């Protein structure tokens, strides 16, 4: 039958394409929430960089089509079947991946999570892009760097109950003593809505004419505040900073409404996750509370009580590097 012939030739062709699997290579799988997301493509770039630096490491960059736990489980099952040496995963679900990842560990595969973590018993270590203390310090430092003589700053947050933002602002207040002459005159809430954030930012500039900077530790707020500053004709007078996405902030950097802002660097994150997975898989380091693990050019991380660690300060984006990152995420 013609059909059978066709399938046989397809089979032979597929067999030829597959090629031999290099046995001496260590294979580290970078599993992401879903393929086709700029942030994760950039992380894969970082992973390749780490692989090149280590040598003899093959990176398998993979993930489901949609951000579902079920899709990730199918991907992880196929990685277990391939007997990869390590899996570094950014999880779609803290809990649902645990049974599958436990199975991976039982079969001798090193498992670490990064970015979005897995519950403690489903991984050996977790790498956070940063820590609350580092973020809290960074957002005030970004404002202070451009105010050598001190000045008035205001905070535009998300909602009054946003856990992350509240912790970061608390952490910021703890280190205010290190930045002499900087005074936080007001904290307002834009509820992570573009229009409300815009109105609150405009209100800040009206009630504090001497305002020098607006700190928005939220990606919605920072864009709205930059727009408000531009519309009020106060570019150069009020600097908008905080946490934002390069793709959304490129315009504000270009216009000067924002001199700099911060967010994690996905390339560094992919690089560090790969380094961490490699260190654990080669048993150059063991995952236990208090362990200090070297992650190449990113320095050393220290695991806490839950075997989690913070990679570094949030990465600062300004006019010198925004063009490289605005296409990525």
């Amino acid at each position, binding site marked *: *039958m013609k*059909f*059978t012939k066709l*399938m*046989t030739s*397809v*089979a*032979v062709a*597929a*067999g030829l*394409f*597959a090629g031999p*699997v290099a046995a001496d290579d260590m294979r580290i799988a970078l599993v992401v929430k*879903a*393929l*086709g997301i700029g942030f994760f493509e950039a992380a894969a770039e970082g992973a390749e960089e780490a692989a090149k630096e280590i040598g003899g490491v093959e990176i*398998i960059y*993979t*993930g*489901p*089509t*949609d951000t*579902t*736990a*079920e*899709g990730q*489980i*199918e*991907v992880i*099952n*196929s990685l*277990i*079947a*391939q*007997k990869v040496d390590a899996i570094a995963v950014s999880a779609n*679900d*803290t*809990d*649902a991946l*645990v*049974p599958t990842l436990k199975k991976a560990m039982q079969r001798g595969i090193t498992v670490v999570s990064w970015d979005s973590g897995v*519950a403690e018993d489903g991984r050996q270590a977790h790498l956070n892009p940063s820590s609350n203390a580092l973020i809290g310090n960074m957002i005030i430092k970004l404002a202070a760097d451009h105010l050598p003589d001190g000045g008035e700053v205001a905070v535009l947050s998300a909602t009054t109950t946003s856990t992350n933002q509240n912790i970061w602002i608390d952490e910021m207040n703890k280190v205010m003593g290190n930045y002499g002459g900087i005074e936080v005159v007001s904290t307002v809430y834009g509820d992570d809505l573009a229009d409300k954030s815009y109105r609150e930012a405009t209100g800040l500039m009206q009630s504090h004419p001497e305002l020098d900077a607006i700190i928005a530790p939220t990606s919605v707020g920072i864009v709205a505040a930059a727009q408000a500053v531009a519309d009020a004709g106060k570019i150069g007078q009020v600097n908008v900073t905080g946490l934002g996405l390069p793709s959304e902030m490129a315009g504000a950097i270009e216009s000067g409404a924002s001199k700099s802002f911060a967010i994690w660097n996905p390339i560094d994150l992919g690089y560090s996750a790969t380094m961490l997975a490699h260190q654990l898989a080669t048993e150059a380091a063991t995952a236990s509370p208090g362990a200090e693990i070297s992650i190449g050019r990113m320095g050393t991380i220290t695991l806490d009580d839950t075997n989690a660690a913070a990679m570094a300060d949030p990465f600062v984006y300004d006019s010198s590097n925004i063009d490289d990152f605005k296409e990525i995420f």
Partner: protein
Amino acid sequence: MSLTDNAPRHIPDRLRSPLQDKLVSWESLLLAVAIAIFIVNSLASPYFLNAWNLSDATFNFTEKAMIAFAMALLIISGEIDLSVAAIIALASTAMGVAMEMGAGTPMLVLVGLTTGVLCGAFNGALVTKLGLPSIVVTIGTMSLFRGISYIILGDGAFRGYPSSFSWFGQGYVFWVISVEFVIFALLAVIFGVVLHKTNFGRMVYATGNNATGALFSGVRVDRVKMTLFLLTGLMSGLAAICLTSRLGSTRPSIASGMELEVVTMVVLGGVNILGGSGSIPGVVIAAFVMGLVTFGLGLLNVPGIVMSIFIGLLLIGVIALPRLWTMWRKKVG
């Protein structure tokens, strides 16, 4: 086709097509595809022919196939249920609530199945009592059922199911034969017998071929349809038990998008989406085809989007083939 072909005494299992007459049956064509995929996979990856790996691969389709069996009957009868994935979410959430209240494993199973049946009853009542089209009703209940899960859970999760509960989704009956695979195999036999060997099965075909004709022949069409909605709900509840047990936790986003994969499996299995024809062996082979394709491509680390494209082409291909054949025959003849 003349009207006399559809006389009540003679209702074919499958509508006759020139392709079938001249060539092979749908099932043998699918089987050839499945075997070809198996061979390609074995050649392409050194990891494919491994009992444990193949066992792991069955989890890619067992839960979906459980629902697909009931869905096949429902589609043959001329209806459809797009809310099955949402029923899983609601049943899983109900089990989570029961677990929080201290229910043991038998109680959790009961809650899961009951929730499924109740959801099926709701769909069935709207379709048969109010006479609404099932595609509209179940698109509505798809949002409704999952919406209730979101209201109960928000961005939280239920975790901490009893360890005996993990038997369904993580247990093995014998060596590499998983509990889920045994359930899948048993259901395949049961549904095969019900559809192809019982009066009820004949009524399902009759309803799908010509509901009015069936009604005048003494088939209680609404009762058949109601039963099938209940059955689909029950199977969704069962799939919810297996999936929840396998994941060990419940989130409202559980099983999102699964309804389309179930319908794909049914249609790939040769069931006419307009009702009236189809077979359970076809659906069983389609389940294996889909499972083997996704697992095989996964072993080669083919990105998921390419897998979706492949499944999509496979589906369009198998649907278009008989039609193209007919057109070609007409042209030549």
